[in-house]
């Protein structure tokens, strides 16, 4: 258990400079952008005179000098008090927490889906190397990887939601929620089938390829040859001596992909009208809502760090030989 804590502490310490760099970058970016939160507000509400705009800027703390605003921004980051989202007119933490579960659920399911199906198919391809199955899986993965997720999503909507009406057109839940808890869970699951599949398929190819090449490598290893020579059952060789070590790079890739997957969820959330972190980020940027953007980025980064932490722990379980070097070199 002590090891796990060390891992967690190290990860969090590593995260601090990362978050700092990101936050400063975001602040600079919005400084460069034309228009501020008041302009965005006026665009939505339809006009106002300069005195009104001036008063809003004062109220929202946008009239102070660059450094004052920057220090206030850093302060809110350091104290983890994300502050008040002027555009959503609610605390940033509330705005984020409303959306976080949807995104976390979708991301988690998509990661699990893409990694499980990907490793399974990759493993099959490796075991049937050179056959039609191998070629089919490899080519299929490549093709899926090349298709933009918004495109797959739109096609899936036409086919499965409109034509066949198997799944809802979008959203995260029915507005008339079932009364029973189990019904609600099933309702959300039913809404998530298409978006999770689309997001998962887009990222599956990586795992197929990784697993396939890793399995082919382990199959040629002395270990496996020795095991075969000893006459161990085939299934056991595949599971213990081929699949298990081959899973290591896959697990590493999971961590590396977490950030990309979160990014990809923006597009999928848009296509399927899921109120998640991605669409919130999109709104926050267009509304120039600095505290909200900073909050989302922080939470997004933390999510990636958490996924990596889980990866580290899994890695340690899978490969007892792992030393702290992997933690250092593995990166985020």
């Amino acid at each position, binding site marked *: 258990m002590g090891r796990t804590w060390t891992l967690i502490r190290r990860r969090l310490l590593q995260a601090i400079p990362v978050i700092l760099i990101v936050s400063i970058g975001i602040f600079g970016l919005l400084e460069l*952008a*034309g*228009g*501020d*939160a008041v*302009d*965005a*507000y*006026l*665009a*939505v*509400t*339809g*006009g*106002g*005179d*300069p005195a*009104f*705009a001036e008063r*809003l800027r004062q*109220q929202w703390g946008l009239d102070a000098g660059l450094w004052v605003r920057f220090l206030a921004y850093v302060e809110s980051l350091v104290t983890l008090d994300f502050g008040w989202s002027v*555009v*959503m*007119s*609610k605390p940033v933490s509330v*705005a984020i927490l*409303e*959306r976080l579960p*949807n995104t976390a659920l979708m991301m988690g399911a998509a990661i699990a889906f893409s990694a499980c199906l990907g490793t399974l198919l990759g493993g099959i391809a490796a075991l049937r190397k050179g056959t039609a199955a191998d070629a089919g899986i490899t080519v299929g993965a490549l093709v899926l990887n090349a298709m933009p997720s918004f495109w797959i999503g739109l096609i899936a*909507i036409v086919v499965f*939601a*409109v034509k066949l*009406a198997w799944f809802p*057109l*979008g*959203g*995260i*839940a029915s*507005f008339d929620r079932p009364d029973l808890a189990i019904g609600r869970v099933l309702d959300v699951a039913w809404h998530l089938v298409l978006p999770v599949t689309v997001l998962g398929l887009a990222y599956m190819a990586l795992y197929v390829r990784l697993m396939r090449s890793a399995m082919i490598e382990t199959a040629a290893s002395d270990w496996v040859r020795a095991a075969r020579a000893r006459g161990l059952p085939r299934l056991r060789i595949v599971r213990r001596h081929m699949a298990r070590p081959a899973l290591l790079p896959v697990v590493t890739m999971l961590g590396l992909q977490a950030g990309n997957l979160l990014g990809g969820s923006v597009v999928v959330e*848009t*296509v399927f*009208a*899921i*109120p*998640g972190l991605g*669409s919130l980020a999109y709104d926050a*940027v*267009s*509304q*120039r809502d600095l505290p909200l953007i900073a909050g989302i980025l922080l939470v997004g980064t933390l999510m990636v760090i958490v996924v990596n932490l889980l990866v580290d722990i899994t890695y340690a379980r899978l490969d007892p030989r792992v030393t702290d070097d992997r933690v250092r070199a593995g990166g985020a």
Partner: protein
Amino acid sequence: MATEFSLSRRHLLLSGTAITAATLLGRQRLAGAQPARDGGTLIAAADTEPRNLNPAIVASNGVFYVASKVIEPLAEMDYETGLRPLLAIDWQGSDDGLTFTVQLRPNVTWHDGTPFTSADVAFSAMEVWKPLQNLGRVVFRNLESVDTPDDGTAVFNFSEPTPPQLIENAMPALTSVIPKHLYEGTDIAENPHNQDLVGTGPFRFGEHRPGEFYRLHRNEDYWAETLPYLDEIVFRVFPDRGAIAAGLETGDIQVSAFSAVPLVELERMAAIDGVSVIPGGYEGITYQITLEINHRRPELADPRVRQAIRQALDPSFIVDTVFLGYATAATGPVPQTATDFYTDDVQMYETDTDAAEALLDEAGYPRGDDGNRFSLRLRPAPWFAQTRATGDYVRQALRGIGIDVEIVSADPAGHINAVYTEHDFDLAVGSPVYRNDPAISTTILFQGGLPAGVPFANQYGYDNPQMNEIISSASETIDTAERVGLYNDFQRLASEDLPIINLVEFTFITVARDDVQNIANNPRWATSSWADTWISD
């Protein structure tokens, strides 16, 4: 000027195909055959979730769509009488234009049980409409105080003569009354009740699930005793317009307003059994598509160049191609739906590229070796698909007369800042709303001398003393006929001077299931209270 950022997902259309007229007739017959029925949940599609849902502060269509069911104005527009009393039952302006007296409806209570009185009206007017509301700041500029001689009377006192006609015309959109007892002594702009609305309307605010829905419940204590008919209204948030059309088809959605269903889908929707396309009910909120012009560019300051640009453009092409016929060519800043102010006695322009080229030659801008006379940067407003499509059309059309146009895009904040504060544009495509009276949000697009940073106003560098004079005398003319005459002059001068080019005008379209009754029965239907909306068996 309610330019909801996410309106960009909407197609905007204007009334009037033969198919829709036929289905509309069919619906009315059906409705007439049955008495109104109590009960039921109406599911309406929404595509925006305004951050501030208080219509007294944000008088925009996106807010009204939901909030007008909960919070009421003094009066509502009406097809027969012009104005229908809501919280006000009678009103009278003084001959000198300095006072405007309103008699309020008795025995009205707020949703929390507190009685509604003239103090609420006085508070809303002085603390919200005048200082905080996007439109009220113009109309109530000269409002000095509101006297409350008794609970049922509010007397508006103005420091300068203010036309009663203007106040009447402003009542539907600008006079939403909010409860004094919940707002007094708080930071009004950040009051939690701006989300969790408390009003006097036929529906109480229930619940808002961000990204999913708003739910409103029937107000059992509504002042109109038999109303409302519906038990519930649910506004489901659907950012994708294609999904809204599909939802109407399957019955998951019963009403979609503000042209949320894409225009190219309308013909198909009209043919579906059980679904109707309804063009009326938006006459009180007519939009235009305009070409905004920066007069700081020496070329564009030349009236001949502006005329040439006007002649190069074909509004009917925009009507046919961008709006698929659901719009009308505009002749000036007042739309034809505004029958009280509109005049066609203005300078009309034909589309004539040869004449346009001749004018440009005459103005001293011959075509260069590359065929171009000069280059312009065009910023189409990002909120409507039609503003962007019009931008593409303008680019194509002006290239035809030797003006090279580069399109510059920005998100709403960037667009507002670039056009109305930094003046960093040559041309822009805008979408102003005409709100029942030219003085509310239309003359401000022509008035000179405004400071920089006023969005949806004349930031074009156009300052014509004659125009300023017409606008200011109209704003304090009490006599209605005289006032209308001045606004006719205004339209004439605008058409001669062409400070901006009004291209087309359009109203929205509603698509609904046939069992929803009393749709589009007033000129601001989508933004009215829906107290008399009901669902037939």
